[in-house]
């Protein structure tokens, strides 16, 4: 195979193996990063993709196996070693130092110097340069905590690119990006490739994999399940290799919604964020919310869930005027929200799945005011079955794979069935199998009469799931499309400001 | 005696007082005495308390001198570090009345020194205690915060008495930081490890009281507990038979004396003795009834 290199060219890994607490999560994996080529790495959540990448980038020490670069032994004991060897990992989880500026985050660990001092001017300049290549307009002097997740992801990529790496591993870079940002990342990957870098690209979006890759490696439960020497593989074949069975990937028409209006919002606004939001969702209806990154979708749903306070407008739940000033108010009114950033807003990373799922429901799960372990365990078991949550039960959710984290987060808000369920980016970083499970769960909830609001940057997801789609741009509603009218083109026309050139998207 | 620097305006009627702390009754009573005397004579008193921090006390002396006090009454936290404060006053030409402690260095000048002889006080009370024990047996000593001047002097005094009483065996030295609760806990432990213990010398009344209470709780009788200070509570305890003796100091009177001396210095022409040692009075069950605590700690002492 072309990807199976002349011995020694590029970064070659042989027999990589890693165990955690007696469980083998990566087992005897061979993979090669060849200059000028992209290897697509796929696999279910928890298949071991990030662990494999971690070993290559010196984050994780392999228990067995060896690596070479151009035939010389390569044994990174720390990320620093890997960086010195030109190996850079763009981490799946966005990792920023919130207290530092954008430029400093990009050049962290190797600030440019002049005359024994940090050369801030040059640093900002070079940062602006890399950012511009990614098409980002972020000010390098800005502090990280003022930025959206998408912007942070771009900085993460900029950080890697600015190192002029020989080998780059992209661990799900697109999970937090909109379509246009993703397109620009692809441009950069092409440029890197042309420059002779060896690249691994990890994604759950199969079409990205097939489009970019020169070879595809599929992992399953830590094993190497399949390998293709070309990117030209059918979606079905990849999915089959990933999950071990055929998978229908697509959306049927959702079941008919009921007639009873569960939530009605009129004139909702929050100064500086959004305004003039009107919509109603009936029992059993799924309302999609589409828009470009930064359109204000998250702000709207956060307000509904009491995370922020509205400055104007009315919210009526089940025919009753409801004042929502805190998450408690929202929960009491039966409104639950799965937030978009599961790490900072959704999960207690240091606690296990059970604790996380039951966190808002301690009172409901208690008997005469006493929370019993059995009630918690029963709840956990129920959702582990229902949502097919994998991974160790008693391990901190920080150690779960992204997809399983997302399922735990979803379960958290299903323990006590809400009247209105809001999902903000419900499948971010989730594998196809898990996506199907989550979609099925959403459908089931709708069938049970829950009013569902889904915010997603994956157009396919919004359109596939929803009865109707609300499109937003710049903090204002641009229109609501019925399922029949909600073609990708129609949505995009509304989502895009008039003068923008649409060729990006 | 030091007027060359000329920092102090003549005719100033302000007396600066820098005192080690205002938490211990000794210093509080001294301050009360000063206030009373100053008020009587129509002088203004500016009082600073350093919370037992030598550095802070030097800072406060600076601050007092800034306010152009005519004379400084100085009760330093620590004798060995006292020089720095006095030197500041010397440099500003402000005469110093040292109370309780004085600098150990020779290159600074003080006008007079008023104090209890702590070494002697500890020696006396320990000697009395050893007599009560018939000259033999085990004792424990509860020390103040290690390194504090009062602790060092009182330890020295007691060691002197020990040297003269070979039958007495000090089986344990322990610091209880002037604190009654710590003394209580420590004594519990000492009593456990030394069942034969016959007496405890507390280098302060609070510690002697804590020790006595621990022994009482442990059901130990016939022991001797002695302290130094002469706090009103100690008087009561001696009357009640809880403790046996204390060396009562006279801070209220010393405070008054310090102000009187200070006024003499302000008005010029004072010819003060270099050292004015005040006797501490040994108060025991025999004479506690005759001694009025207010004589030692001022009118405030009557409240208890």
């Amino acid at each position, binding site marked *: *195979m072309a990807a*199976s290199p002349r011995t020694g060219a590029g970064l070659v890994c*042989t*027999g990589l193996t890693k165990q955690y*607490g*007696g469980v083998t999560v990566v*087992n005897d*994996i*061979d993979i090669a990063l060849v200059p000028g080529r992209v290897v697509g790495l796929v696999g279910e959540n928890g298949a071991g993709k990030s662990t494999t990448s971690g070993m290559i980038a010196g984050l994780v020490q392999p228990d067995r196996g060896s690596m070479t670069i151009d035939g010389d032994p390569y044994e990174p004991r720390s990320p620093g070693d890997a960086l010195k060897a030109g190996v850079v990992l763009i981490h799946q989880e966005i990792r920023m130092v919130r207290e530092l500026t954008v430029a400093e985050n990009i050049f962290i660990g190797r600030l440019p110097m002049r005359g024994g001092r940090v050369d801030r001017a040059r640093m900002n300049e070079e940062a602006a340069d890399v950012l511009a290549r990614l098409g980002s307009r972020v000010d390098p002097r800005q502090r990280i905590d003022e930025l959206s997740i998408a912007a942070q992801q771009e900085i993460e990529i900029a950080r890697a690119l600015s190192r002029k790496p020989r080998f780059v591993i992209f661990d799900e870079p697109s999970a937090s990006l909109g379509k246009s940002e993703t397109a620009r990342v692809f441009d950069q990957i092409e440029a890197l490739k042309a420059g002779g870098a060896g690249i691994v690209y990890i994604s759950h979006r199969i079409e990205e994999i097939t489009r970019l890759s020169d070879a595809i490696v599929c992992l*399953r*439960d830590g*094993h*190497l*399940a*399949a390998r*293709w020497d070309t990117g030209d593989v059918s979606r079905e074949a990849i999915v089959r*290799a990933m999950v071990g069975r055929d998978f229908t990937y697509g959306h049927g028409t959702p079941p008919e919604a009921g007639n009873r209006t569960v939530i009605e919002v009129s004139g909702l606004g929050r100064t500086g964020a959004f305004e003039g939001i009107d919509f109603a969702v009936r029992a059993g209806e799924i309302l999609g919310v589409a828009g470009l990154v930064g359109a204000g979708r998250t702000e709207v749903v956060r307000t509904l*869930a009491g*995370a922020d306070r509205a400055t104007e407008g009315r919210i009526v739940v089940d025919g009753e005027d409801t004042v929502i000033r*805190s*998450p*408690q108010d*929202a929960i*009491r009114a039966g409104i639950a929200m799965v937030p978009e950033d599961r790490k900072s807003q959704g999960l*207690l*990373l*240091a*606690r296990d799945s059970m604790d996380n799922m039951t*966190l*808002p429901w*301690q009172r409901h799960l208690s008997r005469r*005011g006493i*929370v*019993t372990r059995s009630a918690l365990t029963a709840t956990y078991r129920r959702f582990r079955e229902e949502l097919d949550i994998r991974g*160790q039960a*008693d391990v901190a959710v920080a150690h779960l794979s992204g997809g399983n984290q997302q399922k735990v987060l979803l379960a958290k808000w299903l323990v006590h069935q809400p009247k209105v369920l809001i999902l903000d980016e419900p499948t971010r970083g989730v594998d196809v199998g898990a996506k199907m499970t989550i979609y099925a769960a959403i459908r089931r909830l709708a069938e049970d009469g829950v009013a569902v609001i889904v915010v997603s940057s994956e157009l396919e997801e919004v359109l596939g799931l929803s009865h109707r789609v609300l499109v937003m741009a710049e903090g204002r509603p641009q229109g609501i499309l019925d399922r029949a009218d909600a073609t990708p083109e129609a949505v995009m026309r509304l989502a895009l400001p008039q003068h923008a050139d649409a060729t990006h998207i | 005696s030091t007027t060359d620097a000329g920092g102090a305006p003549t005719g100033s009627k302000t007396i600066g007082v820098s005192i080690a702390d*205002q*938490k211990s009754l000794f210093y509080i009573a001294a301050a009360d005495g000063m206030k009373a005397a100053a008020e009587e004579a129509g002088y203004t008193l500016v009082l600073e308390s350093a919370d037992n921090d030598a550095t802070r006390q030097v800072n406060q002396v600076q601050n007092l001198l800034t306010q152009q006090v005519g004379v400084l009454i100085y009760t330093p936290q620590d004798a060995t570090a006292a020089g720095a404060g006095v030197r500041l006053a010397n440099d500003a030409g402000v005469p110093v009345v040292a109370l309780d402690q004085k600098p150990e260095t020779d290159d600074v000048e003080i006008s007079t020194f008023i104090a209890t002889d702590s070494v002697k006080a500890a020696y006396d009370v320990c000697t009395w205690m050893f007599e009560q024990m018939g000259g033999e047996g085990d004792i424990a000593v509860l*020390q103040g915060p*290690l390194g504090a001047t009062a602790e060092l002097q009182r330890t020295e005094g007691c060691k002197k008495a020990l040297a003269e009483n070979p039958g007495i065996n000090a*089986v*344990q030295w*322990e610091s209880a930081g002037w*604190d*009654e*609760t*710590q003394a*209580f*806990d420590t004594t*519990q432990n000492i009593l*456990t*490890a030394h069942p034969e213990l016959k007496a405890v010398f507390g280098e302060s009344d609070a510690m002697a*009281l*804590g020790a006595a*209470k621990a022994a009482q*709780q442990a059901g130990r009788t016939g022991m001797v507990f002695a302290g130094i200070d002469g706090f009103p509570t100690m008087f*009561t305890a001696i009357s009640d038979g809880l403790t046996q003796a204390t060396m009562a100091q006279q801070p209220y009177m010393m405070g008054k004396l310090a102000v009187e001396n200070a006024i003499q210095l302000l008005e010029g022409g004072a010819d003060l003795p270099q050292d004015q040692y005040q006797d501490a009075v040994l108060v025991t069950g025999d004479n506690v009834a005759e001694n009025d605590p207010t004589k030692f700690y001022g009118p*405030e002492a009557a*409240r*208890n």
Partner: protein
Amino acid sequence: MTVSDPSTTAAGATAASPATIAARTVPADRREPRAWKKWAGRVPGPLVGLVVIFVLLSILSPYFLTSRNLLNIVTQISAVGIMSVGALMVIIIGGIDLSVGATLALSSMVMGYLFSYSGMPFELALVLGLAVGALIGLLNGILVTVGRLQPFIATLATMSAATGLAVFITGGNTVNGFPEWFVSLTRLSIAGIPVQGLILLAVFLLAAFWLRLRPGGRALYAIGGNEEVARLSGIPVRRTKLVVYTLAGLLAALGGLLVTSRLDSAQPTAGAADLLNVIAVVVIGGASLAGGTGSLLGTFVGLLIIGVLNNGLSLLGVSPNLQPVVLGAVIVAAVLTDRQARKAQSGER
């Protein structure tokens, strides 16, 4: 390991064999190490260290293991122990309370002052003393939540203020002559156990009940873990914080009551030495100052380590100058030993 020869798979070039698919099922051997880990995780903080200290002292001092000495230890740790419970709760929510010692002193002095200087019935003075403690705690809570001050600053300020007021209120005088029943409270034993030990136990058990079994108490861990997650989960973060700081103040006042009763004396400088002890107890007990972790069992072990060490060093007659040196070394050793032991158990590197 089904795909043990990667080159074959590579050559296979397409989907995997059925055997690979079977490998997905969770192997049985997964459960084994996990049970261990769980158990080890539940072993409170530096228990190993405590056991070692305990055994060593039993060998070194003939008095250590006497029932009388053990009872002494109980009475010696009770006030600090009660305060530690409050400190633990504050630390779990990610805060810190520097004012515990000062609160102890002020509430005790207020009680003494009201009783002795203003002639109030003692029972009322006692209740007001406790109320003062709770009030300082509430003030801390308000400064932290409404004022959004860092807990360190807020409680440093109240500490400073309470310390000053405690001396001010009686001009530095101690208050004595409390009613007989109150003084004898700390001298009584029930079934051989000192009453203050029982109070300590009751406080620990009540707190454990709250923290482990009541929704309100369990919320503390969520708040300390990630305040925003807790808020979005509908937990009344602000109210919980107020409750926790108030409880910490109240418990410090309760500790003050015990100290006062024990010595029949309210003292303005009481408790000053307790602050670092109290926090040390909690942290040695395994709680992290970053918040979100900490258990009462661990805190109890920490309390015993400090209590037993102080007692043992006295019994052994270690020179008072060297006691703090030994104390420091033993604390490090205890925490390190425990860490080693837990690593070995859980199979971590």
